[in-house]
């Protein structure tokens, strides 16, 4: 293979992984920005989404669109239930909320282990074939992930910037109390934001299921990535999550192709330390006003 092809494929892989990380990080940073909860269970919703899709699309051979809707919808319901039962009580209590989310992660991951077993499942590819531009081939299976993730990010952006509920969410993120005084129903916004974040994670899981294999343990790695990305991009910043996610995806892909996968992880950690030292509010984050 010539250098061009390797480079192009590395970029495509980096963008694909990066976009998945972007989806994970946006959901994570939204939940933190609005509810002030660091959600260690975020990756478990990714795992549940991927598993449900594997069962619906892979094992039961349901139509693609139906499988996606059902997988994301069911995971969103699980998220709603968790918000009702657990997270609601820890709103604003950062430390206890975080510990509770670890408990939720333990419960979800091991319930999946008991229900679905520990063996990895593969999902048949949604599309096959390649796109060839100027002699360089891109597999459609990966392009679909990138396109799907871009669509999700764009529609989320439309929702947050142009709709009533999106404006309300941004208001709550800035100051929940003042927002409530202005007549925004915080009790509705909190679960809505949580479910939206969870749905993004579930959608990321659905997109990745045909590319990777699915097992109960796949949730932790994307959670770690979401953490790294929000520290780099700035906690609570959505553009920061996009930049950070793509940066991490590309670092991972390039270092993985040309050096070694674990070097990529160490590099990411060094980037985090450098950002914390030089620009503590994150690349695109704003300095936080202390309450």
């Amino acid at each position, binding site marked *: 293979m010539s250098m061009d092809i390797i480079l192009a494929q590395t970029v495509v892989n980096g963008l694909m992984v990066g976009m998945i990380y972007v989806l994970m990080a946006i959901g994570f940073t939204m939940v933190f920005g609005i509810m002030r909860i660091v959600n260690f269970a975020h990756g478990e919703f990714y795992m549940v989404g991927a598993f449900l899709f594997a069962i619906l699309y892979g094992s039961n051979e349901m139509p693609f669109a139906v499988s996606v809707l059902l997988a994301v919808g069911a995971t969103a319901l699980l998220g709603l239930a968790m918000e009702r039962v657990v997270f609601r009580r820890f709103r604003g209590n950062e430390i206890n909320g975080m*510990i509770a989310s*670890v*408990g939720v992660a333990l419960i979800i991951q091991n319930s999946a282990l008991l229900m679905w077993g520990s063996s990895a499942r593969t999902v048949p590819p949604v599309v096959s074939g390649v796109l060839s531009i100027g002699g360089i081939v891109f597999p459609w299976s990966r392009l679909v992930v990138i396109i799907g993730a871009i669509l999700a990010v764009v529609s989320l952006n439309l929702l947050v910037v142009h709709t009533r509920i999106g404006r309300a969410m941004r208001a709550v993120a800035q100051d929940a109390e003042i927002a409530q005084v202005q007549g925004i129903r915080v009790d509705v916004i909190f679960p809505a934001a949580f479910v939206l974040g969870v749905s993004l994670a579930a959608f990321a899981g659905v997109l990745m299921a045909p590319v990777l294999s699915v097992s109960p343990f796949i949730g932790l790695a994307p959670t770690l990535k979401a953490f*790294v990305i929000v520290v780099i991009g700035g906690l609570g910043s959505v553009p920061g999550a996009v930049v950070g996610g793509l940066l991490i995806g590309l670092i991972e892909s390039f270092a993985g192709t040309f050096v070694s996968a674990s070097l990529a992880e160490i590099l990411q950690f060094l980037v985090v330390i450098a950002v*914390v030292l030089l620009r*503590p509010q994150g690349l695109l984050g704003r300095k936080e006003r202390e309450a």
Partner: protein
Amino acid sequence: MTLPTTKPVHLVGVGVAVAVAVLLPWFAPNQFYIHLATVGCINLMLVLGLAIIARAGQLSMGHGGFALVGGYVSALLSMKGWPPLLTLFVAGLVAAVIAAALGWIILRLRGVYFVLVAFAFSQIAVLLALDMSSITGGANGLVGVPPISIVGYVLRAKPQFYPFALGCALVTLLLTWLLYRSPLGTMMAATAENQRLTESSGIDTHRVQVIAFTIGSGIAGFAGALSTHYLRFISPDSYTFWESVSYLTMLVVGGRDGVLGPVVGVLVLTPLPELLRSTEGLQHIIYGTMLVLCLMFVPNGLASLVHTWRARQHVAPANATRVVEEVP
């Protein structure tokens, strides 16, 4: 909330508990119980380390990472011929130095960032252990780590190792208790209570938190090394994120305030995995459920129930003045 341990009743209680722990090998039905007690001692040290960090208002999700570093340092040095009794302390020191450097950088930020970076550090520690296979043995780990020997007396079997582990745990417990009663301990508690107010009283809260993180992680390094010389084996799987989570569970379920909390948490949660060994998933679900339920209904941990109960006992004889001293 400091325990008023100067009362004779408490001294008797502590004495009885220590006596039971010391005499355990004589009335334990079999070696398995001694093994469980040894694991409990090691867990207690790890949870106390976590408690010291929590005392200064921080939460370390990378606690297992420091235990892993300590375990590898001690294993590698002792396999090179260093005496294990020395390498235990070297392991603690190395973990403490790493924590001090990392803490100095990340503790300047808000609590959440600290948690995220400490968590990322523990993942990196696991990856390095996997990747540097020429030194660490990769995924297979290091087998045949030398046992600890004290002036020629080799602690190879379980009944011989247990007194040493118990001694280490009791010393850690005593030192933690003394730390909590020292001026530094007060500064730590004040930092956790209200960082800005403490800062305005002229206390460098950043320094206090870095010191707490350094001490706590140093203890984790020592305990990780102790466990490695007990099991005579270490691998990257020895201390993963889920180990860090189980220490956190013990701390939260037991209680974060005094030294009693970690003891209660370890006593309640160490035997649980052994009872549920057949269904590994179920054990984790129970841990998770206990964690969430405790945070909801007993946020100060099971040890706080003792205080509540004692407070009620004091109220009963209509002696309201004595209740005042129970209030933190």
